[in-house]
Structure formats: structure tokens, C-alpha cells
């Protein structure tokens, strides 16, 4: 079974999760091979995050008054096994937006690659 859930009461009783039971032999072999590597402690190669390449239209200002330069996906606070707390107030959000805007003005892919928290950029838009 491959599923979005885990084996906890929260997941099984209180969350929307979806899974599928797999019987395809080739898929099962691939999963078994991966599992065996992990059990044996063979290091995995993390998938590199590609540089943003899709140009999006100019973003409209959103409700809190600034035009976002980036959607900061890794600030969802979710790290595996532990959940960190993100910014709780608008001031922190604005500070982050200002930092993102500054990075947008520098506007090089190297800058973005150097900061893994920046994952999705409005490459076609003017900086705020």
C-alpha cells in the first residue's frame, strides 16, 4: 500500500488520507529494492530542486497589502518527524516579503539556489 497517511490514530481517524493497494510486480520490486537500500543504510541522493523556469503573469497585490515576490514553500513549518513553528504575525510575514523582494531585485538563479527556502519564483514579474 502506498498512501499519504501514516500509522497513527491522528492519520487514521482524523485526517483525510488517500492510498492505493499495489499489486503490480514491477512496482513492488522497485519499492522493495528501495526499501532494502534504506535498511542497509545506503545513502540516498536527494533530488535537486530545479531552478524556476516558468514565467508567470504579474501578480496582483494580495490582501495584506504587498505583492509577493516568492511563495516560500519550505516555510510551511513541516519537517519530517518534527513540526517547527513558523512566523505568527504579520510583521514577520512582511519582513520575509521584504527579504524576498530584495532577493528578487538581485534576481539571479544563484541567489535563489543559495537559499533553499525560495522555491517558486515569479520570474516574469517585476519586483515589488
Amino acid at each position, binding site marked *: 500500500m*502506498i498512501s499519504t497517511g501514516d500509522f497513527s490514530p491522528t492519520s487514521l481517524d482524523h485526517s483525510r488520507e488517500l492510498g492505493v493497494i499495489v499489486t503490480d510486480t514491477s512496482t513492488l520490486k522497485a519499492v522493495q529494492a528501495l526499501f532494502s537500500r534504506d535498511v542497509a543504510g545506503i545513502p540516498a541522493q536527494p533530488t535537486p530542486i530545479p531552478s524556476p523556469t516558468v514565467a508567470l503573469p504579474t501578480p496582483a497585490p494580495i490582501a495584506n497589502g504587498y505583492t509577493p515576490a516568492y511563495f516560500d514553500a519550505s516555510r510551511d513549518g513541516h519537517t519530517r518527524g518534527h513540526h517547527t513553528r513558523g512566523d505568527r504575525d504579520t510583521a514577520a510575514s512582511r519582513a520575509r516579503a521584504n527579504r524576498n523582494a530584495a532577493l528578487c531585485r538581485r534576481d539571479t538563479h544563484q541567489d535563489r539556489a543559495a537559499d533553499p527556502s525560495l522555491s517558486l519564483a515569479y520570474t516574469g514579474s517585476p519586483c515589488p
Partner: protein
Amino acid sequence: MVRLVLEQQPYGMGSYAADPAYNFLQTYVGQVRWGGQLAFRYTHASYLVADGARTFIGSMSWTDTGLGANRELGLIDTDPRVASAGERVFNADWNQRKLHSAPNAVVVSPDGARARILSLIATAHKSIDIYTERLTDPAIIRALIASHDYGLQVRVVTPSDASLASVHRHHLQVNDRSPAVYGCQSHDRRRQDAA
């Protein structure tokens, strides 16, 4: 047509975590709704149905960590029954309606997943291999212990201290040292302690 259901307060955090994604997607996609008001608390499902025909179901959140650092597993399924079942669940959640009966083609929480998992464990003959972030459900732990006692090989890869405590107590084989489990503080701390 692109529609998305998002969790507003992932794992009990405030909406500050999800609001930027919601605003971003509402700007560019338009059809975005918060999930989980009636039959369940959290929208943790990460799946996608394309053209009503192809389905992606994966354990990962669609974040840098989920897609680039954690050990996660997903499947692209071309079975139209799975796509149809996924759309049925999606439409129920999109319209804030309860799912009165879970479709058989998929395993759905909180609508019968535990029974399906227990059935899968009960029908295993030789071995059970598990990746999971958390293994704390008493019924599932009891079923794994019973399988282990019956002679099946049971292996678990988990980064969770709570899971480790549960399975260690019952002598199931656990790998808590896998370098594939990135981003886990308990794992890193354990490695540091060992060093």
C-alpha cells in the same frame, strides 16, 4: 479546470503557514478551497487526478522538504477506477460533504483505512516491510506483533521516537539509522549521540 483543496492549519499550526500558498494559488488558479470541516480535521492527502484518468498518490507534501529531502514514495496510477475513486473523494471534500462509503479502489482515511491496513497485514504470508513517519496506532502495532510472532519477517523504517519505542518494545526489526531519512531531528540527534 484546476481545483485544489488545501489544509488551512497544517498539523495544528496557524493559518500563517498556509495562507501564502492559498493566496498565491487563488491568484493564478482561482479555484482553491480549504479542506476538512466535516468528517475529518486535517487534509493530509497529497494526490492529483489528471483528466479523470491518471492519478498521482504520494506520501510527500509538495514542499522543498517533501520533494527534495525526505524519503517519500509516490505512485502514478493509470487505472481509471483509481482515478474515479480519487475524484469521488475530492468532490466530496470540495463540496464539504461527508463521504458516506469509501470507494474500494483506494484506501481512505478516516473512512475505513485502518480496516484495510489490518486486512493487508493479516493476509501477508512471509514478510511485511513498512516505511512510516509514525507507527503509533495500537491496533496496527498489535497486528504486526501477531504477524511477527507467527513467524513473518517484519521490518520498519521510521524516524519517529514514539514509533521506535513501540516497536522496540516488541522486538520488531527497526532501522532508525537510515541515512535516507533526512530532515529528522530525532534521527540526527541519535547519530550525534552515537558519535
